[in-house]
């Protein structure tokens, strides 16, 4: 008997084809698995411990998927809950789940898998030589670790299996690898491990491995020799090309994938069309290795205030770079005199939209834009200081002349006030792996049934 995994979408919050999900339920899956996150939008989510998606979008999709689970009578797993998989976003997701269960009157047993890492645990592992940098890695010390607002470890299949073993109807997991939530059940049933990880990688973005990427829903059958993938939306198809090309996506190496406890090697994989919609894959190999989990961490790197001016005056458009260089020099002096701040105590950068705002120093094309947007970014050690610098530079960004002997220009400010306080700037501060003796030693499980606290799994 193969193990059948139903994947509603590549990520909760982006939508999926509801008819295709209903069709998936009738095909009797053994589990429903969906990813809840990614680092793709940047460090803010992890730094602040917040979901990037709207609560309303998350709740509406999650309610549909919970209903699908009820109908299918199988476990449901979400990985990297709330975009970043921090402890706070696991609780956020559990709150939404409880709200839906209360609305539907459903009795549901949930297991929460927490991936958050106390800084001192990682510092101890660092001291014991159990933390290794990947390439390229920021420098870390116990002091740097202590400044991080959130550190998470990426759980693998073992931690998801432990959560499923509690008998939970719904597993709400903190940070996991994208693949672990899909691979966990087929692996525990003894299906081919190379196929489990390879199929999970193909399925982790939902229908992105098919000809209709936005339809979301796919079904994967795992067995002792390989896996078979099929998209469930009307008219969608998987082809050997669409499936094998997915190994390229957001992946530095298209043939090797590192996971806790080993790596996947797909160099010998064979992709065969079973019919016009389904693809069979065999020959992928799982290579066991040391049990390490990847770490992610974010910390505050400053606070920002921005200002945007638009130059339409052709004289200034033609000399935008010279203007910004002259303006920057003047502003550094003004800030030094009026705020007693040397230039190295803060950041002040102007990016020219219409010239090289996207590529910066790498830009090798030049044109003649009609207008140029000047985006000023102030980065300081507190929001109050960034805001003060923003107010100080505001009149000069509006009126500063290109040369001393010309009239004061007035540029276009699109709104009032011209400055915007952005809050904290977070940075990713870890690209490391941590070696564990026991997969559960850095993770914590908590169980709950419909509001009443039932601690059925020990915290370790």
């Amino acid at each position, binding site marked *: 008997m193969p193990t059948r995994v139903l994947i509603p979408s590549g990520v909760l919050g982006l939508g999926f084809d509801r008819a295709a999900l209903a069709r998936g339920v009738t095909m009797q899956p053994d589990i429903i698995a969906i990813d809840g996150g990614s680092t793709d939008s*940047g460090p803010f989510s992890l730094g602040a411990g917040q979901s990037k998606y709207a609560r309303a979008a998350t709740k509406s999709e999650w309610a549909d998927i919970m209903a699908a689970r009820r109908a299918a009578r199988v476990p449901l797993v979400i990985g990297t809950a709330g975009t970043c998989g921090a402890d706070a976003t696991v609780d956020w997701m559990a709150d939404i789940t409880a709200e839906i269960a209360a609305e539907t009157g459903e009795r549901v047993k949930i297991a929460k898998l927490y991936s958050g890492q106390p800084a001192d645990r990682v510092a101890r592992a660092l001291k014991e030589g159990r933390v290794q940098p990947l390439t390229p890695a920021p420098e870390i010390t116990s002091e740097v670790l202590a400044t991080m607002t959130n550190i998470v470890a990426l759980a693998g299949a073992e931690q998801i299996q432990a959560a499923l073993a509690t008998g939970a109807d719904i597993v709400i997991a903190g940070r996991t690898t994208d693949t672990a939530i899909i691979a966990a059940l087929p692996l525990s049933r003894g299906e081919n491990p190379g196929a489990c990880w390879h199929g999970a990688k193909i399925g982790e973005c939902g229908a992105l491995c098919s000809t209709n990427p936005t339809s979301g829903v796919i079904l994967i059958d795992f067995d002792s020799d390989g896996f078979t993938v099929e998209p469930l939306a009307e008219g969608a198809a998987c082809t050997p090309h669409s499936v094998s090309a997915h190994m*390229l996506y957001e992946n*530095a190496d298209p043939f090797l994938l590192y996971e806790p406890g080993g790596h996947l090697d797909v160099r010998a994989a064979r992709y065969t069309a079973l019919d016009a919609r389904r693809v069979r894959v065999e020959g992928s190999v799982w290579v066991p290795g040391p049990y390490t989990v990847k770490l992610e961490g974010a910390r505050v790197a*400053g606070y920002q205030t921005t200002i945007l001016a638009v130059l339409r005056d052709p004289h200034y458009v033609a000399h935008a770079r010279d203007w910004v260089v002259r303006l920057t020099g003047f502003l550094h002096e003004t800030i030094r005199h009026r705020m007693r701040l040397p230039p190295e105590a803060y950041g002040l950068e102007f990016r020219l939209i219409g010239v090289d705002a996207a590529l910066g120093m790498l830009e090798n094309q030049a044109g003649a834009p009609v207008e140029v947007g000047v985006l000023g970014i102030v980065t300081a050690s507190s929001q109050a200081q960034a805001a003060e610098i923003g107010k100080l530079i505001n009149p000069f960004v509006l009126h500063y002349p290109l040369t001393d002997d010309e009239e004061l220009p007035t540029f276009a400010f699109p709104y009032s006030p011209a400055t915007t306080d952005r809050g904290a700037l977070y940075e990713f501060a870890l*690209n490391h792996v941590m070696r564990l003796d026991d997969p559960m030693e850095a993770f914590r499980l908590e169980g709950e049934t419909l509001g009443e606290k039932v601690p059925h799994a020990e915290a370790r």
Partner: protein
Amino acid sequence: MPKLAELVVKVRSKNAGPFWVTVDVFCGDAATFSRIAAALDTAAVAALYDQPAQLLKRFDIIDLNVIKFSFPRPVVQGSAEDRDMHGAQWAHLMAEFEIA
């Protein structure tokens, strides 16, 4: 000399985690793949992104007619210096690369 984008089906780039970026060149057919694979000089591609050539990984994937380059992001995703959170606009430097 034609630009790469005029010869191939698609050029795309995307983050591969916060510290890496990957650029995929979809050549479409075997003849184009052979031509582009021969013409794209790894060192020149590294220079395009201001990265040391020894850090650039290159995969010539004949089964897919794809040439893939992966390298550390010129700046870490989301840092104060970052200009492109998703790394998708870097593809255009490659797309505009002139092919002899």
